[in-house]
């Protein structure tokens, strides 16, 4: 009765934070999954005219950018701007020069990220004057651009895909191997347990980076390798946790009752031990996912993981940290996404542990 009351107040608090963390995770997940298709930019498209643009909700180019760009371009053509009017989305531009102007110079404008294809106005154009309409290409960089002039929003979302995929898949690998290994060792006990846990310790003793380099040397650089390498290391902790849980659960009366009913070892493992160890397992899993995401960025940082132009949150943050003196947005946005995801996962794990802890697992 009293316990129920305590649980109830705790549960109410728990439910709120579970809802919030789940909402954050779902939002981040959906954004990363669908976002890259919805943004107008491709993650590897380089905008040479928009290097290190700050984040803003206003469309580019601004009047200032327009002026600078025009100045640069006309200088390159060796012409002067005699008149320049803006009509909404396009410019009416007249260039004059001492020497005759070849209309092919308009390609300079075409190549710019600021303008669309130019339309020559025949009536106003002669040998030394070139009049044309120049549509302004409106582009948005909500998160700004990076040092190569790539849209940070798209890159953050693409990076999220990679990071979340690595986090989930590698954790899943660790979960499957770890639970199977730990539960078997713990339940069977005796010499089998000793042998299986010694194997775990031997693998533990291998340095992680050594293992990754070894795998890369043998199999070449491959995206799948990240999962394998991280999964191969992270299942060890999972196996130990599950073994510990199994050791305590197998002494519970309900396991003895199942033995008295004549249930087989695999049935006991499947029906009794694993469900009752699920609390700590899930709690550890929610800690594992962020850990794996960080490990992935570490591996990528060393150049052994994800390769440019593909990216992950870890790489983006490393980039941002390197450029921290001037444009801070390079660091802030990926860090915000990673931080939110990790915090939500941790919160979820904590609530889970609290709930299952109270439930007796």
């Amino acid at each position, binding site marked *: 009765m*009293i316990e129920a009351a305590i649980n*109830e107040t705790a549960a109410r608090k728990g439910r709120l934070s579970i809802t919030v963390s789940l909402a954050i995770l779902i939002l981040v997940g959906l954004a990363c999954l669908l976002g890259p298709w919805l943004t107008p930019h491709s993650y590897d498209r380089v905008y040479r005219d928009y290097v290190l643009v700050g984040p803003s909700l206003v469309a580019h180019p601004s009047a200032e950018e327009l002026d600078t760009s025009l100045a640069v371009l006309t200088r390159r053509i060796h012409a002067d701007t005699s008149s320049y009017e803006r009509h909404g989305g396009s410019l009416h531009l007249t260039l004059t020069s001492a020497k005759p102007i070849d209309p092919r110079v308009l390609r300079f404008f075409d190549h710019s990220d600021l303008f669309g294809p130019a339309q020559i106005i025949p009536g106003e154009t002669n040998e030394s004057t070139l009049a044309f309409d120049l549509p302004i290409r409106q582009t948005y960089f909500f998160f700004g651009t990076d040092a190569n002039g790539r849209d940070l929003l798209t890159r953050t979302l693409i990076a999220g895909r990679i990071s979340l995929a690595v986090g989930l898949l590698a954790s899943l690998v660790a979960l499957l191997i770890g639970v199977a290994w730990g539960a078997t060792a713990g339940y069977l006990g005796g010499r089998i347990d000793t042998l299986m846990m010694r194997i775990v310790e031997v693998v533990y003793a291998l340095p992680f980076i050594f293992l990754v380099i070894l795998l890369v040397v043998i199999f070449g650089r491959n995206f799948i390798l990240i999962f394998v390498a991280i999964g191969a290391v992270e299942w060890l902790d999972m196996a130990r946790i599950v073994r510990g849980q199994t050791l305590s659960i197998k002494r519970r009366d*309900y396991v003895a009752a199942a033995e008295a009913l004549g249930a087989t070892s695999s049935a006991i493992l499947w029906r009794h031990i694993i469900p009752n160890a699920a609390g700590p397992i899930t709690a550890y899993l929610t800690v594992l996912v962020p850990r794996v995401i960080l490990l992935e960025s570490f591996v990528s940082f060393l150049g052994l993981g994800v390769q440019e132009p593909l990216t992950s949150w870890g790489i983006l943050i490393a980039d941002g940290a390197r450029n921290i003196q001037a444009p801070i947005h390079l660091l802030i946005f990926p860090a915000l996404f990673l931080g939110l995801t990790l915090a939500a996962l941790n919160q979820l794990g904590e609530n889970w542990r609290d709930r299952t802890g109270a439930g007796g697992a």
Partner: protein
Amino acid sequence: MDKASPVLAFKDVHVRYGGNEVVKGVSFTLARGEVTAIAGESGSGKTQTMLAALGLLGPEASATGSVLFEDRNLLALPEGELNHIRGKRIAIVFQEPMSALDPFVPVGKQIAAVMRRHEKLSPSQAKARAIELLDLVGIPEPDRRACAYVHELSGGQRQRVAIAMAVSCDPDVLIADEPTTALDVTVEARILDLITELKTRLGMAMVFISHDLGLVRRFADTIHVMRAGDIVESGSTQQIFSTPAHDYTKMLLAAAPKRTSRVPRQDAPVLLEARDLCVTYTLRGGLMSPRKEVRAVDHVSLALKQGQTLGLVGESGSGKSTLGRAILKLVAASGHISFEDRDLTGLDRKAMRPLRHQMQLVFQDPFGSLSPRMTISDIVTEGLRVHEPHLTRANRAARAAQALSEVRLDAALLQRFPHELSGGQRQRIAIARAMILKPKLVVLDEPTSALDRSVQADILDLLAALQKDHNLSYICISHDLSVMRAMADDIAVMKEGRIIEHGPAVEILTAPKTLYAQGLVAAAALKDPENARLLQLLQ
């Protein structure tokens, strides 16, 4: 101060957990030197009331009302001032001494620490006084025991240490929260003797919390009976026992389960026979210490006839539970077991599997014996999945509903989880899980000792009815002689792994031959009015 003035006065104390009120306005007073008992079943709020007075409730709880101690309201006192009262003026002894004492500090030092804190004694003074106190609470060789750690002491000694610690500063009030519930009956009797003696010697007022009315009869001056957060009846001990007014009190007093009149058939065939059963555990030695062998069951022989009940009595650690499991071949044992003329001795786990449905087990703790992650339906039908795998889902559901009705539960419970049920309901589920396989032999390992008094009788009644309907044989393991009286045809008394006395239940309960059995019967008599009469007849 005159003796009749109250030392502690509870006035309209409420304890709430969120919207849940667990103590609903408790008022009573405790006079100087008076012993008052608060009796009630689990969840009645008796402990919560006391914890509220000492400010020991968890952060989720809120207490209102007032508890006056020397004109100061303990509920409104700041933590710092409360610390001067707790331990020094009002001390508490908890149910489980193992968790109330620090495992890393020698017990003498723990007691001394209390006195150094409250009485500002020097270390050597405190140490001397601690040894004195250990002597007072009846611990042999107190100067040597003072250096012992908690795990080196027996359960009874631990509780003695906890009591010594509580009385070390000569408190005005001692609160004892079920101090003997975790102990064996014979130890319990000795601890109660100690408490009675301390009461007269130290003259402190005492609040004794217990679920067992019979227990407090000997030394309580007044009794308050609590139920669901309310005091339903208060009065002097004599008054409560001679003329209980409230139905609930009467129910608590009608404690001992009655024997269902049943004449055991002498010509019934023998169902189970065990000869020379031994269970040995090997304790792994440390670096220097050699491996040690412990005989949990030592050359035990017994026989059980069809439709009858064999009671195994003994204190904790006597090997009775291990014996029960060895008979079911759940722990490795040497010796000879035959079941319905089949020799089970050589069978391994796989070979035993087809036989398992004939021999089942019901555990003591219905909270631990049901997997918290399975629905009742899954729990009850687990045996069917093993032994009758051809059954369809619908067939299994029908059998589960049938099994539930057999243990007098509503089939609507099938979709629930164990934590949604009460202790008695859970134990019924555990029984249903065993009964669904239609076994011939059921080992009942303390089937009622984790349950409230009012539920115990129902469960025993149910077990007796099932035995009659299905001609079941029981091996009933218990330390509670009243359970034995209700259930057993034969009784075997166990001590240190051996059966030291064996015979018909009536003989053992009325004329025990060995000293050990006599001790058990005498200790049980202290609690049980009916046993007391028996004992008087004996003397």
